């Protein structure tokens, strides 16, 4: 008995030794920076000359910063449209391409391709496609007699353009996740449902959708985080304009920290954003847990 304990102890010690490098790196590059940022959010740190403790000054200023709350409204609007569409389109694509037929792999690849392009490069191409006079989108519209808007320059359409471009780029990878999820659904469930006379819609409603719950949870959580951290596309496509309708929190944090050197204030903004992401992820978790998948 005692020798077993000794062996266990030895193994445990070796195990700790093995995970030490990872944990050290994790601490050095994740935990410590987060704690530092939290501390910085209570200072007037400017990278170069000062780091005085200013208590809650940054957070007080935050409450009165209309622009910061405007950016939150912007990403909220973005999320409300982007996240459901993202789930819907990638699920539909996945179900469409979840067959073993000739050529299906080609279509899967093609749907995945936009994900491989760099966000900035793709956004640059989209600026072209969306150009009001010479862009492909408005040219196509003009064939059916519609004068298209200046997509990126008009307050009404700017955010929709960004939603469109980010959807185009993100449905591919979510489709792959959903295909994997679909292939994990056991066939016998469908067979017995068919025997019981369930229609195709019933099978989707009572088998596919509940079975995909963990997958949907993953996709929706990633979408929430991604949506709240929107930056690249908004930066390249519209630079936050016109009239601040596409300015996002991350954009503002970047500007405050690196252009104005107010790292303390930027850290406070970043913490509020992190908190928002945490809250929405938790809500999402609750919603998903309410209906556990049937096995």
């Amino acid at each position: 008995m005692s020798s077993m304990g000794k062996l266990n102890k030895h193994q445990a010690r070796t195990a700790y030794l093995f995970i030490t490098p990872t944990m050290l790196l994790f601490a050095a590059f994740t935990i410590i920076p987060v704690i530092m940022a939290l501390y910085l959010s209570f200072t007037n740190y400017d990278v170069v000359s000062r780091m005085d403790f200013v208590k809650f000054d940054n957070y007080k200023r935050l409450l009165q910063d209309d622009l910061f709350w405007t950016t939150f409204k912007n990403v909220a609007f973005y999320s409300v449209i982007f996240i459901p569409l993202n789930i819907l389109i990638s699920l539909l694509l996945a179900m469409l391409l979840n067959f073993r037929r000739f050529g299906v792999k080609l279509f899967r690849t093609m749907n995945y391709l936009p994900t491989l392009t760099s966000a900035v490069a793709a956004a640059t191409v989209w600026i072209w496609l969306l150009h009001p006079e010479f862009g492909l989108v408005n040219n196509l519209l003009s064939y059916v007699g519609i004068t298209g808007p200046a997509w990126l320059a008009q307050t009404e359409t700017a955010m929709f353009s960004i939603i469109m471009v980010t959807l185009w780029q993100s449905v591919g990878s979510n489709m792959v996740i959903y295909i994997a999820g679909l292939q994990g659904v056991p066939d016998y469930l469908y067979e017995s449902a068919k025997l019981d006379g369930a229609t195709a819609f019933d099978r989707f409603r009572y088998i596919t959708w509940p079975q995909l719950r963990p997958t949907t949870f993953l996709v929706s959580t990633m979408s929430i985080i991604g949506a709240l951290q929107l930056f690249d596309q908004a930066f390249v496509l519209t630079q936050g304009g016109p009239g601040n309708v596409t300015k996002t929190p991350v954009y503002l944090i970047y500007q405050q920290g690196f252009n104005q050197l107010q790292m303390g204030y930027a850290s406070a903004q970043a913490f509020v954003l992190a908190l928002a992401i945490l809250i929405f992820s938790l809500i999402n978790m609750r919603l998903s847990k309410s209906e556990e998948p049937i096995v």
Partner: protein
Amino acid sequence: MKKQITIMALAAILGVTAAGCSNNGNAGTDAGTNSGSNAETNSGSKNGDSGSGKPVELTFWGDWGGEGQKQFETMVDAFNKSQDKIRVKYVLQQDMITKFLTASTSGGAPDVLFWDRWRTSLYAPKNVLHPIDEFLAADGISKEDFYGEALKELTYNEKLYGLPLTVDARALFYNKKILADAGVEPPTTWDELEQAAIKTTKWNGSKLEVAGFSLGDPGLFNMYLQQAGGQMMSEDNTKTNFNTDQGKSVLSFWDRLLNEDKVYKTGFEQGLGEGTDAFVTGKLAMQYTGPWMLSTYKKYGKDLDFGIVPPPVGPNGDKGSVMGGFGLVIPEGGKHQKEAWEFIKWWTANKDNALLWAKTSLNIPGYKPALEDPFFKDDPFWKPFLDTLEFAKIRPAHPGYSVMENDAVIPNLQLFLQKKQSIEDTLEKSQKRGDQLLLDNADVK
């Protein structure tokens, strides 16, 4: 035994990581660290001693790549050949300002820095730049030889922090062919500009084929405001000063051009880069831009016959343009400030070298004697810019100015141009938000 090896391996990893993190390694004291980090510290801490005959090595940081990098290297090579005491090396830094900040705190600052001048008011108070007044006095260099506005932009609290390398300002570029076809002369006043724009604009149904005049950049508000006789900031440089009759006259001028005369369409030029530039392709008759576009436009030769005139004057005959450009500064953390000054002096305060720089890079140097050269005096493209620079003003030197312009003024102007709010609301909201931003960003010490 195994455990000991693991621990040693771990220690080695940590050692390397630590050595990689700190820039100012102390050479050779810990014999245990591996040879890689030793080599690094040896080459890093070369102690330039100008008396010993060995040349002092200077690091010169800039964020111009491609053509710009070649132009810098031409100048650096010429300087290195001109004497044997100082060796300069150009290092391209993509994210220069961020790197400069971290380097300033960790001790790896360069000796000479290429500097977008408007940043001075934000960085000089933080003591990361070295004032050059003493060098200037010791060498008897006259401030009169430089553009006063450019020097003003490099000054903070009566101290001068660098010398101007280039100066620029926007002037009116016009397509000669389009204007001739419409039978109009290049405009000299707002009214003439409006008439010329109306006559050169061509619509095909709901499609704009040729825009008479570009209204794509609301960031030029400052320039128009000067032409209307106004100023962006109050006398004491603490508050905005555009919610005035002058500000109103700019906005009603824009409103007329865009919404009544319809000489432009919002978003018309967005995303059109080089090669598809609306001005190059004859889809735009007139626009405000600066000397930095000359080399691009000249490439098109006969296909693009264009001229330049100084910006048209406003209703009361006021002239206005905004001066910008770059300078060279010496970081406070640099180890060879005297040698760095020699390099800056050679480049920016010497007629021949400033001219060589001008011809290499097609920029207007900040050193006025160089502009006496026929290269500038007799050139129809340079002349209007030199005339414009005579009255061009820098952006107000307030650390919060650029944030104020970008976050308070431009978004409201965009809403105004899309008829989302009235002239009064636009100016009112810009002023309120602008004053707040100026206040929030005023304290930089």
